[in-house]
């Protein structure tokens, strides 16, 4: 189990235990954090948009999550609340790739 730090749309912080073989979208959806995830993980709808902030420089040396693919980056860039360098489509982020101390914020609804 990994513990994830998630901030919901209301600004509340949650600590969530997550199985490493799940995707971040699956974890957020199961935690009732108001993630629509309409396409269920097909990298299609953009309704599981999150911001992923890595530990600040000088923090523990962790391996960052796998870089977004070209398609994930392009889908995120088309969303209204896109934030360069922070936006991720949660269904494409394996829990195992999220570093400890990373902060996940559920992006505003489109």
């Amino acid at each position, binding site marked *: 189990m990994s513990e994830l730090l998630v901030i919901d749309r209301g600004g509340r912080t949650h600590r969530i235990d997550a199985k490493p073989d799940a995707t971040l979208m699956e974890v957020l959806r199961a935690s009732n954090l108001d993630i629509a995830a*309409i396409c269920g993980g*097909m990298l*299609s709808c953009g309704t599981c948009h999150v911001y992923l902030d890595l530990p600040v420089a000088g923090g523990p040396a962790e391996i960052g999550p796998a870089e977004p693919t070209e398609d994930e980056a*392009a889908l995120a*860039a*088309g969303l209204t609340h896109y934030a360069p360098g922070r936006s991720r489509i949660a269904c494409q982020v394996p829990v195992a790739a999220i570093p400890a101390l990373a902060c996940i914020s559920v992006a505003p609804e*489109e």
Partner: protein
Amino acid sequence: MTQTLEPATLANPDIYQNPYPTYDRLRAEAPVYLDPVIGLYVVTGAEEMKHILNNHQDFSSVPDTRVMAFYSNAPEILEIYEKEGGWAPMSTLVTTDPPEHRRYRALVEKAVGAASVRGLRENVAHVVNEFIDEFIDDAKVDMQAAISMRLPVAVIGDLLGMPRNLGGVLQSMAEATTKLADGTRLTQEEIFAGHRAQIRGQKVFHEYLERYRQQPAENLLSHLLYARLDTGESLSEREIHSVIQALLVGGNDTTPGAIGNSLLLLARDPDLQSTLRADPKLIPAFAEESMRLESPVQGLYRRTQREVTLGGVTIPENATLTIRYAAANRDEKVFERPTELDLNRKGIRNHFAFGGGIHYCVGNMLARMEIIVAVEELLRRLDHIALDPPDFIVQYVPKLVVRNPEGLPMTFTKRI
């Protein structure tokens, strides 16, 4: 005195022109409902829709071929394909369950993924402007014929590697496919005619497949010829025709409906035209609301894999459900003021116009981009877009699966 209401049914011919009163009544009274005339379970509630779309174990996409006559394996249909030299349709993208579904979807998702679509945008704008150039000095046009029907055909044709002058054959092939998806309502003759239209289209594709077999090119047909499934096998020509055919429907029947329904909403609302012209960044939100309000794919089918209870209704194993996306998209439990077009709606992409779950429309990003670019360019170059005459009654293609205007005569003034 009591009044007895007629039982609601999708067999009512009024459904083609205006399905919403029936959807509203069903959603309120029975969001899961056994239609006594067509014999299918009609699902109209958003909650039930979400459950079905995310549960392919219980709700299979493999169709009952009596309903989806396109996939009929009746001997007389197979004989037509054999005698006339076609490839009998088989389930690949739309009507499969995992793991087959994943296998086929993976073949095409890159070609219509977000990065690829971003690369196509400029060319799509160029094509729209070529079409606009043809009618901009006329002050009137059938927008459905001039833009909505032509643009997606051109875009999917370019992607596949087919010349633009073949649009008519491809369009009638796609048109016949969605007609064959209304299998409960067709005569035997209509079913035969629909399959013959497939064969005519397949023969055209066969010629181009042969060409790309000899000389590979940068297009989707060529890609399909050389692609390998995760099993290591290449696709048979029958499989290729089936994949092509699924993409063609998007290019020739559903995206035209999406663009046409959007242009109709625009033509009926001068204030909306002004708002979007003043702030084009709102056009993507308009596209989402248009698809929610007037879903181009009104619904598809699922088949129960076991007895299930949904919305208080027990549905036996092997029953066919017609899941009405357009009805769930107006469910007030999910969408506040559901009949209003709200450009600032929270969760504006959370609609079911592209379905949901693993079968979420693979071409959704292409369709979205085509609507957005068409609206952007029309608003940039035309003013005062209105129906002609203003009280023109739009007729819809009589199909249960898609909502597509038959014609959109409009007047406008030229801006640039």
